[in-house]
């Protein structure tokens, strides 16, 4: 039986810039540099189908799209990859990807697996989704530690459900 889980408190290195601040509400895509709203909506549906975490708020996936957008703004090749990919997912069925049921979405993505555009989007989703402090807290990763003195007095050896190896035995 699993124990009730206390949420972790996670830290992003204080020297790093903050994660993108995406507005709440339906017009969230308005501030993006490269993607228009339909493009952002399609990519949002893709990331949620690739990595469907029930417990994560939509806002987290929107931050992924904002980081895609920044990557597209920085590189025309990446921007083109996203555009080709969205054309592919939207053209696969008589309906735009975002309107498809989960089963159809999965089928469409499976068909594109192995293409360069799919690999780009899938890898970048992993790159950005799991690099988000809110996700770290949800799944129990505490992040930056050195500015807090490391874990030497903060639980590096606090696992208590197995025996603690004794000196001479490790």
């Amino acid at each position, binding site marked *: *039986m*699993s*124990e009730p*889980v206390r949420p*972790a408190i996670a830290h*992003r*290195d204080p*020297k*790093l810039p903050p994660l993108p601040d995406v507005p709440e509400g339906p017009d969230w895509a308005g501030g993006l540099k490269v993607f228009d709203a339909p493009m952002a909506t399609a990519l949002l549906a893709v990331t949620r189908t*690739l*990595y*469907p*975490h029930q*417990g994560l708020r939509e806002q987290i996936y929107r931050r992924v799209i904002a980081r895609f957008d920044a990557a597209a703004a920085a590189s025309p090749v990446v921007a083109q990859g996203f555009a080709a990919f969205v054309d592919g997912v939207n053209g696969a069925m008589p309906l735009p990807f975002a309107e498809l049921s989960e089963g159809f979405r*999965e089928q469409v*993505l499976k068909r594109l*697996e192995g293409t360069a555009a799919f*690999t780009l989007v*899938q*890898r970048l*989703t*992993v*790159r950005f*989704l*799991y*690099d988000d402090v809110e*996700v*770290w807290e*949800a*799944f*129990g*990763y*505490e*992040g*930056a*530690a*050195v*500015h807090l*003195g*490391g*874990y*030497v007095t*903060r*639980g*590096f*050896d*606090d*696992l208590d*459900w*197995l*025996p*603690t*190896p004794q000196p001479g*035995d*490790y």
Partner: protein
Amino acid sequence: MTRYEHDDSGVVVIIGSGAGGGTLAHELARRGVEVVLLEAGKHLTAEDFVNDEWAGYEMLTWLDKRTASGTWRAAKDHPTSPSWSCQVVGGTSVHWSACCYRFAEHELRARTVYGDIPGTTLIDWPLTLAELEPYYDLAETKMGVTRTNGLPPLPPNNNFKVMHAGAKALGLTVSTGRHAINSIPYDGRPATMQDGFTITGDKVGSRWSTLNVEIPRGLATGKLELRPQARAVRIEHDDGGKASAVVYVDAQGVTHRQKARAVVLAGNCVESSRLLLHSASARFPQGLANGWGHVGRHYLRHVVQTVWSIFDKPVNMHRGELMAGLVTDYLPHDPGRGFAGGYLIEMNSMGLPTTAAFLDPGWWGRDFVSVIEQYRNMAGIFMTGEDMPQAGNRVTLTDELDAFGVPVANIHYDDHPNDLRMRNHGYKALTAIHKAAGAKRCVEAPAYPASHNIGSNRMAANAEDGVLDGNGRAWEVPNLFIADGSGFATGGACNPTLTIVALAIRQAEFMAGEMAAGAL
């Protein structure tokens, strides 16, 4: 800092300031040899480093394009970055996890002990363990390796408790292992605070690197000049066939020619082979030191892989030193297991960002999600084993040029049947340990980009079998040396760096001796 003129032909020029080159630079300088150390990366300090997996990766990693071919998973998963190393002063010693193990005696006699295995190009080392041992001692002392010189082991952390419980239940020999990480203050550096971020530079400095130990001491001798952001693009030779200069490009894009008394390549295997191949000339049409065609061949990357397992209760594997665990039972050569050579089992820990990225790079959907959501309850266990040298596993030059006009390298690697048998055996052994500790699900992760890069300019007892002699000197170019893992005759099982450092110390002694005798 001491500065040498570009036309000063009395200096030894070392290319690469990592574990091999940084150590050699210090060891030569303290013997009075004048050294110019060229390093492609920037000179960063502890202040620059961050506690962040991706930001650290982007800050430190050699990101220039490479290509990959062959049956290895890296060709599919990491087609433009099949090998993993750093581009920064200190090289990958700024990033490594500091596991420090010695070759086993039989591994240095691989061809004799393993026999004639079809498809392999096994040879024996031109060195014995007895010859290496004094240098291992020196390396361990300089690096402050735990469990040597009276230094205590790293203490057990959460991830280790899992490994320990499982290994004990199976009757295996388990310890926290040996690391160039201070368990107590040593050599002016503090004990670890268990922050778990050695791989992004180690802000605390409890882990040995050439950035924090060898290079500052080398500079203090007044004999060493470090040139960061200096990218070597070609090695030149004189009419007599001796290396005479290194052409490099500085941070402003200006090309220079540094004359040299001797040249040492220490670019981490792939880059060293690439430079030799690219430095072809009328006299050396196949590339420098490549008369016998071995430059780039016999490339090894070890049988490296991880099993990530999920338990019922929290592990918090990110807390503490990342690889402080060791099981040695599978190291001996035991043909009864169905393969030659052995492997070490070590602990592995990663943060959530890189666990997600390396768990299985193409994996998506509900199953992946159900695994990664349990990051808190995840433990990692790892192996590094001996892979078989094959002539076709090699670094070659492609038609594509990089920003410096040097051809991009391709790394071709086909798994040998012996490698696959060892992989299979290893996955089962890793899984068994975690199962014995109560794992409810074990995920066999593929190898990540090659972190142990070995063998592609190997040493051999005879010129026709390799590129280098037993002192890491090119058979065909008497003042050209190699001080990285590409010089290993075979790979052994253990993580390579302690051996790279030991060989660099030995090489410094040899070079200084030759110079004193007027022979170099």
